[in-house]
């Protein structure tokens, strides 16, 4: 029993060290600034249901339709943010707590455009 616990203890620190080393060694992701279309808030507002859900977050526009069923909490909490400026929802989860770094990185997968600056 003691040996098993000690093995997991060593495995734990080994796992963390591996992760840190891999992270330091891996090249920073090269982001090609693609030419993204620009949308107005009115255009975003046309996609305001769980079946067709766009959101404007920190000046970018995301199509989260495919992600809706995968959201950890009930999709209903997302519904009120569909079709609108949702930075607050992303930053507070509605309970004053920001989403994790993982969630922010995941969000980028659904990026479809930029929010038109003068209408923001």
């Amino acid at each position, binding site marked *: *029993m*003691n040996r*098993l*616990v*000690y093995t*997991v*203890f060593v*495995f*734990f620190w080994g*796992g*963390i060290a591996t*992760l*840190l080393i*891999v*992270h330091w060694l*891996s090249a920073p*992701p090269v982001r090609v600034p693609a030419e993204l279309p620009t949308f107005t808030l009115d255009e975003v507002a046309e996609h305001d249901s769980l079946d067709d859900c766009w959101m404007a977050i920190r000046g970018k526009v995301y199509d989260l339709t495919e992600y809706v069923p*995968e959201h*950890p*909490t009930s999709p209903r909490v997302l519904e009120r943010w569909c079709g609108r400026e949702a930075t607050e929802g992303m930053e507070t989860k509605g*309970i004053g*707590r*920001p989403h*994790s*770094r*993982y969630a922010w*990185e*995941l969000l980028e997968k659904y990026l479809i455009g930029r929010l038109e600056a003068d209408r923001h």
Partner: protein
Amino acid sequence: MHRRGTAIIVLVLILLLPGLLALWLYPLPVDDAGDRLRWAGRIVGVLGLSCLLVNAALSSRLPGFDPWFGGLTRLWRLHHYIGAASFVLLMLHPLLLAYGALPASTGAAVGTLFPPLADLWVWVGWLALLGMMVFLAPSFAFFGAPHYQRWKGLHLVSGAVLVLALIHALPLSAMLPPVWAWSIWMLFGLVAASAFAYRALFSRRLARFPCRVSEVKPLASDVVEIGLRPEGSRLDYRPGQFVYLAHLDRELGIGYNEQHPFTLSSAPQEDGLRLGIKDLGDLSGALQNIRPGAEVTVEGPYGDFFPPDLDDRAALWLAGGIGITPFVGRARALGHLGGPPAQTTLVYCAENPSRSYYLDELRQIADSVPNFQVASHLFEREGALTADYLDTVCPDWRRREVFLCGPPGMLDHCRRMLRRAGVRRFHTEEFDLL
């Protein structure tokens, strides 16, 4: 056995309850491997936390609680296993969450483990886990065999770990709806905190019986029997149970107010308590010199060596060395009761007659009551105990309920002998509390 089985099933259900709820509310994600890892990370977090909190409750050492689990030594072993499970699960928890974020990027994985300081709750979780590593390192002998008192002191860090773990889990709980998470964790946390507070703060005043040493009787060069007179209320116990004794005699120079377990050798019918103590370490060595009039406290009783439901079965008692004490308590009680309800034979193994403490008194009891025989087995004369020897002194021993108490070498030897003879049901009392 029946009672113990029920208690363990109830315990396992309580341990698994939050995890099962989470499984039910959040089934395993189907497509994404990263999601699956992160899901597993959350589940092990939930299970690890419930193990941690329930284990705190088990450690309260509330008298009367341990017989449900077959005695305190068995309960401690259970506590050790659950503690190991909790520690392993809670180490896997951050690892799985971090590796589950790898599909997004290595930055996301590292960020999961080491987020900005503003993500306070994650850092509180780290503090709890590091605290756990500190107080559990000696429990699992990471750095060699632990020193008993240091290990005990370090274990108090667990109180801070419980609080930190709850502070971490409550706001971050993603597997259970907030109301459920708060209700379950607050309930578990409250029970754990009460148990911890009882053990660390209140048990000194509430559970310790003040006594005074009334008699110190040397039984051999390194064995004494200490008689105690309760200063207040009497201790209610069954023969063969043990207590935690702490002396308040500064002149002994060692172990002031430190609790150590000793078996009661007295019968519950007596006015006072008696404890047979052999010099096996620093404290038990110092206690050889305790003087009548010294103040002590006892806490207990603990243990379930002689379960009451087996009282009416024919029994074979195998005792070795100072392992005779629970049998002395029982034999003295039989003296008061006029003998056991069924045939009972004590085989007392010792090196030579001078190491056979209590033998004369035990023989006197055997002569004065029916159904009770005493056989003295001397290692010097007869070698190790054998099945043939038992056949001579107790021909039907294979059909009897066997009770075994003695030094580790003798226990191993007797266990092997009993198994070879097809005796599966035997009862032992082991003071291997670490």
